[in-house]
């Protein structure tokens, strides 16, 4: 493991973030604020408390997750898609570096950005609803693991995509529905029993539930199941990336 390539990739990616600061930080913050205004204040005031938590506060972890997932995927996928698209990926492929170094550089940068964004959204949320975080360390851990895992997923999508349309397809068709149906805005025991069972096949349910547990100590599924699920996801993504670099899938003719 050599630190220089990792640092070079990481810094270059962070620099790219700085160039696109407005779209990468400001727009998610604005859209989250809108969610709070609509769901938290306008509609939320007519919804009962869930598990002793006001509805406005209840949706905070889910909203952060929603942003975390979509931002991680889109940042990381764009980060690797662009060099592939422009051809400058030749340098990455001819460099004396292992896939792990490439992943740490790209995914590390995308995840850093997502975590910072998550914290900014959390701070924004506190302006709308008063709340406390019960288990801050677990909260950060969930935040970090989710950001890393979904940045890896984004990285895979960026390599797989051979056009801008596909780059947007997965977040739009997969991530957003899974998150909306993943208990961001409701507790899954508000669903009919059949749909509660179906929901358990949605990985995002575990993320949102675990994350919410770190805030309020309430969860849909056990916290251990949540953690195990994220770790499983992380390993699957890592193995996929290792396979991609070993076979040159969509990277090398």
């Amino acid at each position, binding site marked *: 493991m050599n630190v220089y390539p990792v640092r*070079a990739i990481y810094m*270059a990616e962070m620099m790219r973030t700085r*160039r696109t600061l407005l779209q990468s930080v400001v727009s998610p913050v604005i859209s989250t604020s809108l969610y709070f205004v609509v769901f938290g204040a306008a509609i939320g005031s007519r919804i009962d408390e869930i598990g002793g938590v006001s509805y406005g506060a209840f949706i905070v972890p889910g909203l952060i997750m929603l942003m975390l997932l979509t931002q991680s995927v889109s940042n990381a996928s764009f980060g690797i898609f662009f060099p592939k698209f422009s051809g400058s990926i*030749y340098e990455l492929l001819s460099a004396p570096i292992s896939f792990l170094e490439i992943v740490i550089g790209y995914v590390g940068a995308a995840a850093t950005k997502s975590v910072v964004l998550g914290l900014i959204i959390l701070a924004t949320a506190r302006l709308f609803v008063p709340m406390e975080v019960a288990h801050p360390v677990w909260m950060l851990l969930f935040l970090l693991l989710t950001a890393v895992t979904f940045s890896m997923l984004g990285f895979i999508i960026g390599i797989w995509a051979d056009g801008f349309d596909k780059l947007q397809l997965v977040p739009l068709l997969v991530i957003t529905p899974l998150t909306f149906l993943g208990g961001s805005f409701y507790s899954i025991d508000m669903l009919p029993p059949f749909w509660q069972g179906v929901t358990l096949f949605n990985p995002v349910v575990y993320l949102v539930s675990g994350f919410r547990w770190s805030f309020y100590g309430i969860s849909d599924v056990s916290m251990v199941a949540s953690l195990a699920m994220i770790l499983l996801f992380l390993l699957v993504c890592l193995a996929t990336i290792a396979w991609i670099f070993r076979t040159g899938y969509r990277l090398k*003719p």
Partner: protein
Amino acid sequence: MSDSIIRIEGLSKTFAGGFQALRQVDLSIQRGEIFALLGPNGAGKTTLISAVCGLVSPTQGTVWVDGFDNVKAYRAARERIGLVPQELTNEAFETVWNTVSFSRGLFGKPPNPKHIERVLRSLTLWEKRNNRLITLSGGMKRRVLIAKALSHEPRILFLDEPTAGVDVELRREMWNVVRELRDQGVTIILTTHYIEEAEEMADRIGVINHGEIVLVEEKNVLIEKLGRKQLTVQLFEPLEALPPELATFALIQNEAGDELIYSYESAIQKAGDGGISALLGALNKAGVGVKDLHTRQSSLEDIFVDLVKERA
């Protein structure tokens, strides 16, 4: 070969569509030489370079770089190589300085602003170091790619058509940069469509066509071995038919009949028919009035065109 820095053995590449771009290529590059790889469009030059640098997975064969297998020991192999690709590819919004420094880091080297400065100056990019790449001209962008390849002090430099789209003056400057690198011990492999460039720069020349190496030779030997000299004899009066005295010479007459073209070996000078002096003597004897004479040595370009045509 004793001191080859790159050894390619049995390298083949068949692309996913079934197209075979490389066929059993064997090639050794000598340490410290400038090797020019020539071949028509689509011959497989870029594919060959890509396979050595790890951009294309070969279907068959092995490449050793300074003794290291470029797949099994890819780190050791790749850190020795700098690659300047044929296509202009750039991160448009980066500055020259950042992108060149990035390349150095990517190849595992600690930062060294002094070295980056040297490289940028040698390529006359120093003034542009804070410019974004998008604001540079095509020739400058190509030089940035060269700077990136040199940023990590490679021992081997691949230049895939380095001077395409570069103006004449700059081309000469780049040749000088390449020679300086060679003097520092860097091995250089370049592809080019400007034969003049190969003639000017290369120590050895390889010709590839349809994915096969059809020839590898020292440049000088190549020119001597294949190079023919031509003597053109301009006559005062057109000849209706060749006089019998000239029958033994392999002469070609132009259409007007007032020029005779005589080809002979430049190096060997012992043409079976007696060479130039015999021809001139025969002309004299036949009473053919000679207006003017000129000779021409065929260039590498002629040789190249012949080779590729022959094997097509």
